[in-house]
């Protein structure tokens, strides 16, 4: 599974870690994140991410 980087703030989504604060379990692929998931640091939407 690929890591994805936020173009706005540089946050890296690591599928191995997920995003626990926002209810995303570890081992969730970026593609499987809900459409309304946003960057936990700056709030950017999913389409502002790019493969790291």
């Amino acid at each position, binding site marked *: 599974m690929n890591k994805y980087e936020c173009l706005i703030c*540089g946050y890296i989504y690591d599928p191995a870690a997920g995003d626990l604060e926002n209810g995303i379990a570890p081992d969730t692929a970026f593609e499987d994140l809900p459409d309304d998931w*946003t960057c936990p640091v*700056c*709030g*950017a*939407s999913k389409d*502002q991410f790019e493969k790291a």
Partner: protein
Amino acid sequence: MRYIVIGAGVAGSSACEALREMDPEGEVRLFTDEPYPFYTKIRLPELVAGKVSPERLILKDESWFRQRRIRLHLEEKVTCIVPGPPFSIETTRGSYDADRLLLATGGFSFVPPIPGADMSGVFTLRTMQDALALGQEAERAKRALLIGGGLLGLEAGNGLRLRGLDVEVVEIFDRLLPRQMDPAGAEILQRIMERMGFSFYLGVRPKEIQGSRGKAQGLLLEDGRFLEADLILISAGVRPHLELAEGLGLKIQRGIVVNDEMETSSPGVYAAGDAVEHRGVYYGIWNAAEEQGRVAGVNLAGGGARYQGTLMSNRLKVVGIDLVSAGEIDTEGVHFSEVKSDPDKGIYRKLVYKEDRIIGCILLGDVRGQRQFLQALTHGTDVGELKGKLLSQPEKLGQK
């Protein structure tokens, strides 16, 4: 120690977080004249589009500040600061004392001196309240006119378009995104956006916003044309809030001048974010404000953090389309360039060369190779016989 932070955006909030980690005991107060704690400005166009609620844009809510014993003063504008230390702060609700001070006052939307710009129905977009007011007006409106065809303007315009409005864009420059695009690339972007429903008036000058009974009804151009509109959005760039800094007599150029410690010309007064200028650079971008805020927070508490500057990102999204723009994009066409253009697919790729090196690139709609191109550009890699043949085979650069 008593600390006061003015401004609850990304710089002020990240400063409070760092400050509290450094000094668990001190008194920390955070002031904002807005009714919302730290929220994301990046998604304001979505709020305009009516796709999200204001609550969804809040990144750190009141309980986050409470847990860190940061006293959050919402809707309380700081009106005056008596120099110190100790500093004495006057607000719309009271007065407070502080030993150290952080100005994270951010920026505001610049409104050019167009007659009629003060009428109702004329908007800017910078804050949550701006977005809510604009969204509310958009509910009744059919035609929106946008003054300014830069990145922020186009994104805001897209929010209005998604709400179902016809959006016309007026730009003084003869092309869209003049800083990021050359004429051919800008034309392709324009065609994509026209297919989405935007209309453009490029290379024209606004003369006067006209209306009746104080309500705007359209824009008169200098060439005599009148563009009717139910609402007008001005998007002409951001300027730093400097009133408090001026009152303190701080050194100011484009923004409040700070050193690597984020300290201003006045000891004990720090500044960070969209109000500052560091080593001659005014950033106005998210990650710079966050890093500056963190450094300022550490140093407010007596730490020794240093800010070294932030690399400006070359990667953008404009109305959902990928765009990489970096270096010398050669808008005049004086250098040797390799160009691949597919207007129907909305793709424009250009590498600009000088001798055997890449000195600039534009990648619109298809950003493959961006990593290799940007690396070669940054390092001044000699591409030798690959010159002019790289767009289709960026991987060859990896072997250089």
